[in-house]
């Protein structure tokens, strides 16, 4: 049996976590190729709707990486992200999506190793949760309704 390969959508802030992802590359740290990255200027640019959209489009897990508290390039963007993500996890629960599928981490530009390790760890965590298949489930429900 082939293992389920999760799709992980990463939103990375330009100043810290995207730089950490670059640092992991420069140091040739290997991790599972389950993720695709979208670089934003600040983690606070991420609207909960983006996260939901990523799940809808087939992501099994969504990762958000920002600067450590106090280190935000834009003073306090990461605190805004923290508040939004905390609240949004409750909404995910109500929507029937396991909040563990959404992960927020502070990874500084110097922490390439932490980034690589987090990617592997999150991938295996999502692997254990299994596929989300939001789109498929939604389509199936449509079929039931039609009948």
């Amino acid at each position, binding site marked *: 049996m082939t293992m389920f390969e999760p*799709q992980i*959508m990463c939103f990375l802030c330009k100043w810290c976590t995207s*730089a950490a*992802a*670059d*640092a*992991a*590359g*420069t140091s*040739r*740290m*290997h*991790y*599972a*190729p389950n993720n*695709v*990255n*979208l*670089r*934003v*200027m*600040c983690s*606070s*640019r*991420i*609207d909960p*709707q*983006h996260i939901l*959209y*990523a799940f809808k*489009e*087939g*992501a099994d897990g969504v990762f958000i990486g920002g600067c450590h508290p106090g280190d935000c*390039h*834009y*003073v*306090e*963007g990461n605190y*805004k992200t923290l508040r*939004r993500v905390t609240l949004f996890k409750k909404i995910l629960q109500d929507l029937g999506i396991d909040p563990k599928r959404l992960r927020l981490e502070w990874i500084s530009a110097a922490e390439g190793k932490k980034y*690589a390790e987090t990617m592997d760890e999150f991938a295996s965590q999502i692997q254990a949760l299994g596929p989300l298949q939001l789109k498929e489930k939604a389509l199936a429900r449509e079929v039931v309704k039609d009948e």
Partner: protein
Amino acid sequence: MTAKKTDKKDKKDKRIGLFVCHCGVNIAGVVDVEKVAETMKDYPGVSFSANYVYMCSDPGQQMIIDTIKEKHLDGIIVAACSPTLHEKTFQEAARLAGLNPYQIEIANIREQDSWVHTDKAKATKKAVKIVKSHVAKALQNESLEPVKVDVNRRALIIGGGVSGLQAALDIADHGYEVILVEKNPSIGGKMIQLSETFPTLDCSQCILTPKMVEVSRHPRIKLLTYHEVDSVSGFVGNFKVKIRKKPRYVDETLCNLCGECEKVCPQVVSDEFNMGLAFRKAIYMPFPQAIPGTYTLDAEHCLGLTPVRCGKCKDVCDKKAIDYDMKETIIEEEVGAVVVATGYDLYTMQAIGEYGGEKYEDVINGLEFERILSASGPTGGVIRRPSDGQVPKSIVFVQCTGSRDTEKHNPYCSKICCMYTAKHAMMYRHRVPDGQATVFYIDVRTGGKAFDEFYQRTIEEDRVLYIRGKVSKIFKEGDKLIVWGVDTLTGKKVEVEADMVVLAMAMVKADGVMDLLKKLKIATDIHGFLAEAHPKLRPVESLNAGFYLAGCAHGPKDIPEAVAQASAAAAKVGDLFAQKELSHDPTIVPVNDELCSGCGICISMCPYSARSLDLERGVAVVNEILCEGCGACAAACPCGAAQQRNQTDSQIYSMLTAMLGE
């Protein structure tokens, strides 16, 4: 001031070029670059797709330039290394080919793909996804031009201490006009109150007064003492400042310092310049070398301003300089940069009750001891204790009073106390050779040029006793002060009898400065000291563009450091003023008036105060110079009216679909 948007093409008509880089084997060793280029050839929007061994090489760049021209490309994707490395290189190449640099996308398939994965098929698949997402974004990119704005080449300096004076002189010497605002009647700050300065023992007044005179005579410095900044609005290069002129009740242009008014004034009050150790009249000059050289009438204590007028000083003034009807006025100025040099204050005695600073006259702080040491001070430089004027035969100096105490007081080191305590103890031993000086310390920190040598001299030549340990209590027995402490090197309790105790109080934010900083909207750290834009790389700039920091307002520091920082801030102001016009990244978050409901949520999101409400139109407006493009407002806007240029919600959704949904 608005960014120009040009040649906005419908995304369906856009012609995108893709250039996949091998980076030798760095990318091509893992990612099948030819396959990526081949797969993408027929992807919607892609008009050209190629791969090349080193895109960043001259031939690689030439290939980009030629292809843009030949194929009439509207946008390009370079799939290569991280954008932090060559984004500028490829933007410049595109510019040479006549393409707007904001039409360039860098797909990172090296640091975030080939270098971190080993499975070639999977890494290639991932590279395709990454490239697709950038095509999706590129199809919706707008051509942008940097936002341009003029610079007003005048600087405002807030604070007339040594930092403010140095910054003012430097900026004025660069050839720019300076407005220096000081809230007190004279410039000079804390430094003018000091006696000697460590480690050279220069007379503080002797080295500062020439600078004060230079400032007052400089043709490009407008000196506004007894003024306070009321408000600052606008943005970098274009600030509008309101300055409140406090009534001095003495016309400084007429006052000839004859001093007759002071002689007849019946009101005797505590003298702030001498830290309350002496008295002055209600009409006074703070100190003999005060600049501007004029008397000031202290309305709070004057009898004449009450309905039953005393009027004695006015009667004796030959020059008719005294005017009881002087009113507060507001002056407006326009400047391009603001240097904040608001200084510090000492931690209050009340905060540490067990040391008895409030109860006992002979427990004093470091600045009071400076006045006692000073030749211009209340005792003419003879060390006498405040209670009875006796020469103290034993003084205990307590370092770190209120500093380095994470539990009750300030967790930080006040930095200068080790050195000034050594100086105090040394000066005391010089002037009272049979006196005993004892210093309680936690650590002695003497990092600085010739600092440790000075400290060694205090111990070896002047035989000051240093006890490593903290003081628990100070109380009075008879006419002696008893200091209880611990010697942590022997582990024993210590009791020292003293005639006087000098507490090296922590340096804290200047009294009342928070109101001002709120008006300036600049950030502080948790202790109320100014926050720098970057602790290593931008130490003299505030995160708010156009504001610069100097001196102890930014944190405890000694005179040379404060002066160096002031000069650095002045140099940074010079950088700003040397620009013809200011340009700013245009990838900001504008407001779509048609969608905006005027709810104001975005305004509360903005850390830069770049957004405000246009009450007339009921919509949010953005100051494009202040907006740094973080996008926090875009994520919060419930109407989709706030959209970040070249990273709109639509672009993000298209990228997600391209990466996940296909």
